[in-house]
């Protein structure tokens, strides 16, 4: 029986080693590492290499990286493996986003947000590879003819209507790490060899298996490099304790990932080495270890029983692993930062949930991961906690306590609705039950899905601008949408809807055309044998994941700005067709000229908005999501999978907002849209229960690619046992009624201070003042000070 004591569970204090490791990572300025880009280029510069089949090129290039990149074992480390040559760093993928990424080459170290260190010499080295990749990067190769090629690149650079992320690589997956640690790479390579023998020589299939064999062996040798390094270091180490540790590291890396992991330590080490290699192969974005508490548990239990592991030691190893994850950062140009937010590469670790039979799967490791997460509070990994009706109380209590204390993590996921939604998309029940989030919020089956969950983002509100202007942007003559009737001919709300739907359909059709081309380019020029060997189905089918080899295939398309579009449509219905406050033509004039009449705008601003428990207006947001999903569901990707709808936007809601004209809900030109499924900025004025009632009006079986629902709560409200119980009540009610995901953010002092200094940024921040709640902006300076003081105390 493996129930750890309460004392163990509440142990969030970290060992000195962990404190030092964390400090070392947090104090390192993130940098850019050129190694991958340069080795990759060197390999491809050889014309002979370029003539090899794509899968072989890929495997050999990655093999070169894994054998030639610099390796390091840092002081105090137990889990080893360095993603880049810098302690905290990112790699470049010139063959993927190549040129567009290098547009910032000389700005990286000095830019204001997320500066990345890079030396003159490194800049110069990168500059020299630009000509080679200028006609070989994936975006350039998407379309074969020059005309379409240029149009595609221009569209992507402007990105008014949609942004295709897949053209910079796919990634976004949770590998089958259970197989890696239970079988080891030799067993996988042997399977590939067997299957290759049956494949027709020279076929794509045979090449694929050959590539898998190359890369499986390279991964094993990558581990052995660290074993050798640890042995050398041990021989020179004067401190006997550290010497023993280095020897242990060497022993671990001698075995894994080549052989099945024989201990908890080995399992963690194997996963991390594969984590590095996968990031280097496919793109450093959302490569997710996933349900670690599940696939690691047998190792944990065995070691504990054998007396070679204690919970405290396990905690230290897990902490060491998590800190290593934070060493991996993405390299985004300023433009991409605006779309993807800063320094976030979405490596998800999921705990809890049900097992294949639907029974609760929470175990001691689930708690241990939560403890480590709470104690570390680092940027990565991104922690998710699954909940279901039968989640144990101790588990819920632990999560509620962590959230109420202001950790803002883990994000919460509802098994009931997610499993149902996945089954409707064609997942087998037991595979759906084995889901984990990847990236931000997207559910996939661990080790079985190639779901390209971040394929593209669509600017939905801008389509209303087109719908009101015959398929053109305000103030332009050139038509970029489909022709729809002028506003003067729109007699009823149904006419507006029809025009909006026509624009939506037109853009989604165009998007899918482009996506098909990008999918083909990925398959032709950027196959991913390492990824594929860790996804169920690829070996069996003899096909790379980019060619549809995985068991489940999808592409996730994000519907950005649903609440803005919904509120805007409601405003038209209410003001034009119900109250007859203004004619559609006059409203059109207001929008085209960005609200010349402030009073008219003020009227529109005050109309009901999504998020306030008003069924009439909430219904319009629901409508937008349903239409989006309905149209999208007609298409299939080239891997044979469906396009699914996601409701999260990272920071694209700001990017798209900047490009979009005025809209009827009182929004001015250029203002950011609401994030994810949030109400239009600060327009939820009735508190969390009303907001949840509104959100619960959406049908989340339509959003198979996941949603992001952020709720902000005042720490003062969440204080004490009562506060935690209240939080539990909110979550349970929301989930019981079909909610999908929720992220609880506790207002921190910084946010309040910002609200004090810039009231316009947080117009309706709700805080509690002695038993009643108030908008922060309504408080006098003295009261605001008191609230800030209070929240400082609550945050400790």
């Amino acid at each position, binding site marked *: 029986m493996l129930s750890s004591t309460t004392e163990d569970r509440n142990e969030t204090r970290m060992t000195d080693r962990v404190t030092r490791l964390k400090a070392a990572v947090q104090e390192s300025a993130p940098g850019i590492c050129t190694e991958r880009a340069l080795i990759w280029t060197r390999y491809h510069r050889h014309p002979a290499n370029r003539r090899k089949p794509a899968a072989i090129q890929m495997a050999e290039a990655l093999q070169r990286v894994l054998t030639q990149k610099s390796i390091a074992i840092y002081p105090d480390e137990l889990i080893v493996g360095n993603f880049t040559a810098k302690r905290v760093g990112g790699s470049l993928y010139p063959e993927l986003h190549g040129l567009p990424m290098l547009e910032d080459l000389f700005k990286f170290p000095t830019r204001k947000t997320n500066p990345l260190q890079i030396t003159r010499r490194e800049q110069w080295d990168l500059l020299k590879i630009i000509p080679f990749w200028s006609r070989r990067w994936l975006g350039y190769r998407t379309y074969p003819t020059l005309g379409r090629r240029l149009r595609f690149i221009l569209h992507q650079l402007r990105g008014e209507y949609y942004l295709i992320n897949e053209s910079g690589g796919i990634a976004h997956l949770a590998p089958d790490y259970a197989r890696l640690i239970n079988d080891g790479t030799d067993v996988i390579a042997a399977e590939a060899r067997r299957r290759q023998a049956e494949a027709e020589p020279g076929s794509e299939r045979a090449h694929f298996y050959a590539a898998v064999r190359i890369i499986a062996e390279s991964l094993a040798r990558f581990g052995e490099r660290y074993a050798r390094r640890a042995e050398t270091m041990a021989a020179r180490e004067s401190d006997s304790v550290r010497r023993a540790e280095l020897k242990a590291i060497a022993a671990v890396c001698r075995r894994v990932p080549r052989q099945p992991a024989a201990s908890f330590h080995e399992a963690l080490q194997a996963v991390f080495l594969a984590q590095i290699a996968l990031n280097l192969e496919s793109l450093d974005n959302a490569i997710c270890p996933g349900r670690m508490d599940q696939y690691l548990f047998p190792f944990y239990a065995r070691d504990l029983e054998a007396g070679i592991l204690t919970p405290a030691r396990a905690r230290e190893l897990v902490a060491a692993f998590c800190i290593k994850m934070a060493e991996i950062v993405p390299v985004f140009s300023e433009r991409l930062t605006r779309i993807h937010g800063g320094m976030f590469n979405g490596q998800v670790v999921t705990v809890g949930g049900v097992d294949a039979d639907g029974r609760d799967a929470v175990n001691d490791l689930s708690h241990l991961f939560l403890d480590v997460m709470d104690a570390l509070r680092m940027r990565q990994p991104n922690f998710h906690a699954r909940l279901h009706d039968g989640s144990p109380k101790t588990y819920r209590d632990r999560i509620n306590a962590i959230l109420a204390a202001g950790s803002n993590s883990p994000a919460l996921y509802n098994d009931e609705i997610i499993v149902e939604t996945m089954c409707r998309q064609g997942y087998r029940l037991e595979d759906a039950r084995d889901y984990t989030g990847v990236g931000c919020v997207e559910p996939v089956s661990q080790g079985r899905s190639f779901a390209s969950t971040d394929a593209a983002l669509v600017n939905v509100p801008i389509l209303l601008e087109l719908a009101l202007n015959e398929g053109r942007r305000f103030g332009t003559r050139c038509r970029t949408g489909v022709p729809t009737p002028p506003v003067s001919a729109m007699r009823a709300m149904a006419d507006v809807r029809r025009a909006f739907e026509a624009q939506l359909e037109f853009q989604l059709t165009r998007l899918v055309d482009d996506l098909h081309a990008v999918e083909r380019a990925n398959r032709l020029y950027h196959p991913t044998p390492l990824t594929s060997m860790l996804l169920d189905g690829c070996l069996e089918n003899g096909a790379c994941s980019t060619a549809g080899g995985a068991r489940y295939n999808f592409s996730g398309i994000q519907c950005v700005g649903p609440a803005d579009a919904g509120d805007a449509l409601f405003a038209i219905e209410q003001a034009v067709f119900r109250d007859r406050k203004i004619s559609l033509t006059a409203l059109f004039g207001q929008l085209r000229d960005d609200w010349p009449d402030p009073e008219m705008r003020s009227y529109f601003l005050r109309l009901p908005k999504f998020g306030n428990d008003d069924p009439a207006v909430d219904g319009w947001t629901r409508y937008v999501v349903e239409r989006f999903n309905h149209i999208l569901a007609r298409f299939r990707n080239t891997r044979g999978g469906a396009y699914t709808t996601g409701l999260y936007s990272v920071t694209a809601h700001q990017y798209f907002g900047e490009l979009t004209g005025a809209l009827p809900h009182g929004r001015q030109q250029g203002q950011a849209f609401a994030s994810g499924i949030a109400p239009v900025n600060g327009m939820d004025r*009735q508190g969390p229960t*009303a907001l949840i*009632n509104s959100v619960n009006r959406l049908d989340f079986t339509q959003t198979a690619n996941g949603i992001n629902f952020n709720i902000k709560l005042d720490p003062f409200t*969440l204080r004490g046992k009562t506060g935690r119980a209240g939080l539990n009540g909110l979550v349970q009610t929301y989930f*019981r009624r079909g909610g999908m995901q929720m992220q609880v953010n506790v207002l921190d002092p910084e946010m309040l201070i910002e609200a004090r200094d810039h009231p316009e940024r947080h117009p309706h921040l709700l805080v509690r*003042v*002695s038993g009643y709640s108030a908008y922060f902006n*309504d*408080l006098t300076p*003295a009261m605001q000070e008191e609230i800030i003081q209070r929240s400082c105390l609550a945050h400790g």
Partner: protein
Amino acid sequence: MQLDDTHPPTSVKGLVFDVQRFSLHDGPGIRTTVFFKGCPLRCRWCQNPESLRSRPEVAFYGENCQACFRCEAECPHGAIRRTPGRRVDFDGCDGCGRCVRVCPHEGLRQVGAWWSAEALVAEVLKDRDFFVDGGGVTLSGGEPFAQSPFLEKFLPSLKAAGLHVTVQTCGHFSWNHVAPLVPLVDLIYFDLKHMDPDAHACCTGAHNRRILENFTRLVATGARIEPRMPVIPGSNDDRANIRATARWLAQNDIETIRCLPYHNLGEAKGRRIGIKLEPLTVTDAVETAMARVQAAFAHEGIHAVIDD
């Protein structure tokens, strides 16, 4: 919140100045708190001055006002002023709210609206799904029992819907009107401000005889009562008052009291509706006073819980 009507009602309606959803510290579980407007007391430390008068009022938010004077043209009583920083002549204003509806900048807000029992029930039922773990509805104020004719219609509907009902009262009400309502209430928070009649009158503007009588009667009905005491350093936290309060509780077989710390938040809110509270001399830091009071109660054998 839905504003029902700002004109005096024809049928029995309730005058409510706020409906606060997701209240966590006003009774068990997640609650919706209804703030009734109108109070028989005038506590010098009042933290909800907008709850005092039993009629609708308007509040002026000077920081939002753009001095456009649309409100001026709309006011039937000439109660709008052009003085900077002051818009409403609170003596002339009858709270009709016409100015609020025309103000484009949220410079004016209605405080208090007449609700029908049906509308108020519908409003609290919106959060019914959240009233798990003992949650429900809290009637606060102001003094909810001052609107007993309305409660006669409102409370039975809440009970019919199966909701847990908590009432927060200052105790100053007519027993004959309230007695029939008591069985419809699950929990009563009863404020005991001062045991000394003169001191009570001085702090709150009313004698405490009626309050203490009502307390005893309520206890006698067997209703679930939790006494509360707002601890105002320098006004009611002296040893003698604590001792007297403790004895009073002991006489009524009660062992616990909730102590509420004082926050000076009423003053700023009062200014918006033209209520000037006499500044209060607070003799002690709130935390020190709370600790002292708790110890003093313990000495008398009463368990004091510090609410926050």
